């Protein structure tokens, strides 16, 4: 069965420090992986995705993610966290079977402290 796991409910980081939000997946074949961010009372905003090619993907707002096939991971990273990065982050994987459907992780709340 295809699935996505975000092992941390919450990640706490001091402003200016690097941040990592973890994501692991389980799919057959080549995965298509996505990161979205949700600010309070807002919809999900697309950050970045991995389809193929370079394992390091750069996205919006200075975020990047590294695809690691051997560890089946797609961790989200940022070199220097901002208080405004505080939000709920979702990892997702394309569901096999077509129609571009996504399977979402449970989400990780990122809290960046001044």
């Amino acid at each position, binding site marked *: 069965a295809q699935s996505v796991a975000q092992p941390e409910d919450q990640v706490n980081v001091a402003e200016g420090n690097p941040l990592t939000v973890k994501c692991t997946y389980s799919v057959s074949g080549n995965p298509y992986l996505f990161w979205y961010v949700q600010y309070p009372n*807002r*919809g999900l905003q697309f950050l970045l995705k991995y389809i193929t090619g370079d394992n390091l993907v750069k996205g919006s707002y200075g975020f990047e993610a590294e695809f690691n096939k051997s560890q089946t991971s797609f961790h989200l990273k940022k070199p220097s966290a901002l208080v405004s990065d505080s939000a709920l982050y979702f990892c997702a994987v394309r569901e096999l079977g077509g129609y*571009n459907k996504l399977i979402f*992780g449970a989400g990780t709340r990122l809290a960046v402290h001044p």
Partner: protein
Amino acid sequence: NAGVTQTPKFRILKIGQSMTLQCTQDMNHNYMYWYRQDPGMGLKLIYYSVGAGITDKGEVPNGYNVSRSTTEDFPLRLELAAPSQTSVYFCASSRTGEGDTQYFGPGTRLTVL
């Protein structure tokens, strides 16, 4: 472009009432989706559509119905509201290519009392 818009933003229903959540996109996307978001559970797919006149069930379709008469609109219908349907509902759309980005609306927060 407005992107994906949803109405209403908030709604309180009594058990057994019905309502329609509206979703419109102006990006000419063929694929559209309805999700519900429950705390700590991520997003679950309710229904999806691959074009006008074509819809199919997602992971959690019970208690809901959809229609897709135009490319732009994808309304979600709740016929007999139940407390278990208290949730935040998101509509999304994408182009037809595998791996194309899904774009989300701002959501509708529904409470069933």
